[in-house]
């Protein structure tokens, strides 16, 4: 497929500003003005000058953002096989429901009896997610995976606090293949992070793990399948071990797509798990959010009749048989706290509701299966037909939803790096894989095709990788000049981060123009 992205050379919206108006509220104020006169604000509180916002008419605003959008690329444009992200198709019917206008004026403190429809949908979703994960109860509150992780870490913290052992429990174990959010979340919870290396077979190095495990271990965070797309085979032993020192097991659900309908974290010994609605359950990534990251727990005892569900830092929805009403139950004093004002990212949650309702259990299982077949088909073709790419860590093991391939052979032979490969893929109308992650794989290209891609697209994708490999041998300089079919060529990130140039807002550029020295040390 040839491809050329639109390039409008669109000015900054400030540069388009022409003293016009897109939205007015004048007429609406008339009658009030007649009664109250002019607006009166005490001098010491009055804004001294208008904010320097651009001034445009609606047509100019719409054109500006329409043009910008054509220089963006999403799943609606073509394959986005980013590993660790589960960029599956976002069905349009779910979009229609998620942003239903009737929800625009629903305030989160409206009494339960007036939002029964929404609560019923979310209650069902909450229960479905528990069934899917094999956990007992979920809160839908966290706004994303990372906030789910932090909620989980807060639960771990609270667990040990309630048991009077917080002082002792200072460490959280994380494998080195983990996503950056895991250690970062553990650190936000005030824990020391103990990293465990990955063994040659792709599992966490079990011996190293055993050695690291101690009475200081507050918990373990594990992604399973891992970011390598591999199922952690020692999971039962690991669970037993962590529990033996009264640690809790946290499941990072970002990779649930790979085992959907086949295995469940709740059956593996995990105590806490988050899900990424915007990965597994098809809500769109929106260029970086919003998503939703429900957190589920096994309802195991903590102490004195307190169980893990009491620690959830977000509301849960309960069905009250007596009143026949769905009710929001807010976290109590034993909880790890509260993670948001409101029940969760409702549009994204409704999206998941529609997705699960549409697919049913059968469809969800098929999702997992097709994503696994796609990955393994991709690897099989790639390994059979190329020499520049390898699959480190247990190359003989079947992958689940994703695979990490290494472009190291290619780099060694031709000098073409994973980044070059990525840019060359852009030129061919594909979004690039995640690169240089996980950190343990050199020249990593992390590919997750998801169930949404057709065999034809996978074939085209492998063909593109083959063609790039050949070009790397024939004319590597051409590749280094890629991409040329995107809106712009390679972007200067060094300049972007240079202390004297770094420009995070137009205001900063303006101030510099006015002669102000703005240097970032």
């Amino acid at each position, binding site marked *: 497929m040839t491809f050329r992205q639109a390039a409008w050379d669109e000015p900054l919206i400030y540069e388009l500003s022409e003293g016009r108006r897109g939205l007015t509220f004048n007429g609406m104020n008339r009658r009030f003005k007649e009664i109250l006169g002019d607006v009166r604000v005490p001098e010491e509180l009055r804004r001294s000058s208008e904010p320097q916002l*651009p001034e445009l008419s*609606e047509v100019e605003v719409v054109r500006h953002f329409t043009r910008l959008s054509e220089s963006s690329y999403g799943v609606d444009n073509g394959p986005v096989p980013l590993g660790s992200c589960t960029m599956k198709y976002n069905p349009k019917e779910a979009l229609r*429901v998620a942003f239903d206008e009737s929800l625009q004026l629903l305030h989160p403190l409206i009494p339960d009896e007036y939002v029964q429809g929404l609560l019923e949908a979310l209650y069902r979703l909450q229960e479905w997610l528990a069934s899917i994960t094999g956990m007992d109860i979920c809160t839908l509150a966290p706004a994303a995976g990372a906030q789910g992780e932090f909620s989980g870490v807060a639960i771990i913290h609270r667990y040990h606090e309630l048991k009077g052992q917080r002082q002792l429990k200072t460490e959280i174990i994380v494998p080195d293949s983990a996503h950056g959010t895991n250690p970062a979340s553990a650190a936000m919870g005030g824990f020391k992070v103990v990293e465990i290396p990955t063994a040659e077979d792709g599992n966490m190095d079990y011996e190293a793990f055993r050695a690291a495990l101690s009475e200081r271990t507050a918990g373990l965070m594990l992604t399973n399948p891992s970011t390598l797309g591999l199922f952690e085979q020692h999971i039962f032993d690991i669970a037993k071990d962590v529990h033996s020192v009264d640690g809790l097991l946290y499941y990072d659900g970002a990779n649930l797509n790979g085992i959907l309908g086949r295995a469940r974290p709740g059956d593996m010994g995990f105590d806490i798990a988050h899900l990424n609605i915007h990965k597994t359950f098809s809500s769109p990534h929106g260029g970086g959010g919003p998503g939703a990251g429900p957190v589920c727990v096994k309802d195991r005892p903590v102490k004195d009749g307190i169980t893990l569900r009491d620690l959830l830092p977000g509301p849960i929805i309960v069905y009250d048989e007596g009143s026949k009403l769905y009710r929001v139950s807010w976290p109590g004093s034993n909880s790890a706290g509260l993670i948001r004002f409101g029940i969760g990212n409702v549009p994204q949650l409704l999206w998941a509701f529609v997705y699960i309702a549409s697919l049913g259990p059968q469809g969800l299982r098929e999702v997992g299966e097709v994503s696994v077949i796609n990955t393994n088909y991709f690897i099989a073709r790639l390994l059979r037909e190329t020499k520049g790419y390898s699959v480190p860590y247990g190359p003989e093991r079947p992958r689940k939803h994703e695979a990490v391939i290494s472009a190291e052979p290619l780099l060694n032979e031709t000098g073409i790096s994973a980044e070059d490969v990525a840019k060359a893929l852009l030129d061919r109308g594909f979004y690039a894989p995640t690169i240089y992650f996980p950190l343990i794989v050199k020249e990593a290209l992390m590919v997750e095709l998801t169930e949404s891609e057709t065999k034809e697209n996978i074939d085209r994708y492998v063909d593109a990788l083959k063609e790039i490999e050949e070009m790397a041998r024939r004319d590597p300089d051409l590749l280094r000049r890629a991409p040329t079919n995107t809106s712009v060529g390679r972007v200067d990130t060094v300049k972007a981060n240079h202390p004297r140039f770094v420009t995070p807002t137009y205001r900063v550029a303006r101030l510099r123009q006015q002669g102000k020295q703005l240097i970032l040390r």
Partner: protein
Amino acid sequence: MLKYIGVKSIDELYSDIPEELLIDEGRWASLNIGFGRPLDEPEVHALVKELLSKNVTSKVPPFMGGGLWPHYVPAAVTEIVRRGEFLTAYTPYQAEISQGLLQALFEYQSMMADLLDMDVVNSSMYDWPSALGEAALMSVRIKGVKRVLVPETINPFHLRVLETYTRPQGIAVDKYKVDLSTGYADLEDLKAKAGQGASSVYLEYPYTFTGVVDVNARAIGEVAHDSKALYIVGVNPLALGLYKPPGELGADIAVGEGQPLGLGLYYGGSTLGILAVGWSSELVRQMPGRIIGLTTTKDGASRAFTMILQTREQHIRRSKATSNITTNAALNAIAAAVYLALLGPKGLKELAESIWYRSHYAALRLREAGFKAPALSGEFFEDLIVETPVSYEGLFRRLAAEGLYAGIPLAKYANWAKDSWGLLSFSELHTKEHIDILINSMKEVN
């Protein structure tokens, strides 16, 4: 494809999973997942419509605010954010193919900076309370004192979230007093407490649970700075069409809720955390969240945008990162950018006036109807406390049954509030008739 892979059945691809873990098809299908079978799109559509119709939406827009507010969602905003190129994109890791997305986010940061009068804005947090939590952690990283100060009348939900963020690290959240006759902060109390050491002093501006705009806003910042604490100001951005922005107040960090900027309420499910700092290397280096920056292409030929200062973030710095955040509220930030561009400075001012007029008209009529309004005498903007002769929760429930959502019964959520206090919120969605209906009904039910 299975054949090509070299396996006989799909089960082989799961062969590395312990036998005991595997769920067979029958068992899986019997679990409580969906409606037990795949539904066709028209079935799902009908089902959801039916479900949503069970929500009782009032003909009169709710008078409920307190941190999340009912506001008009312009059609142009909706149309832009529905475009697949934005909606279905991932984080713009590949700058060359995502210039439009990057530019839109850069423009969000820029417009928000001008609105706040701050220099650096990240490309979004989840929501106000989590932005506040991160700002507090940030202040502790910078100042090293495990204590932050917040006003007594802080939004109780925000307070709980803040505590959730700070508690695991052993950070104390202490309150400084607020004069409950005016709603203004007690500067003497603040001075005394700040003098004992704190990494930051926080102000809500306006206070979401009283509606008051604190005249001491600048002074509070001075107290904070005198005590070597950072000054964090949390805002309702719409107020900034009329009132001094955090930059003018001397804020080091501004946080706030972008939800009023064209996002709609969605039962509190459509939020946008604002986080901004002034130009200080320390502040910028310690900021959480993603930042888009302006640059050029490598050949210098054209302007370009890319993510910057990524060494702060979890995917590079892991446990040393300034936050664990990655997925944020980017699409809502784009919505806010479209919204701000549609309004411009004039529209924003008109809208702020629109809100001011309605809350002040309501106060007038409430007083005429015999209520105390506002119960706190300070400057107010969008929300106001009304004092009634009866328990507000009872009154609220009776009105709700009539299809009028008459604000928030404060005592239910805030321990400093009187049982007779209700927090009413007014916006451009309310016509004079709506407000008159509310007050007449309050009179009758009272």
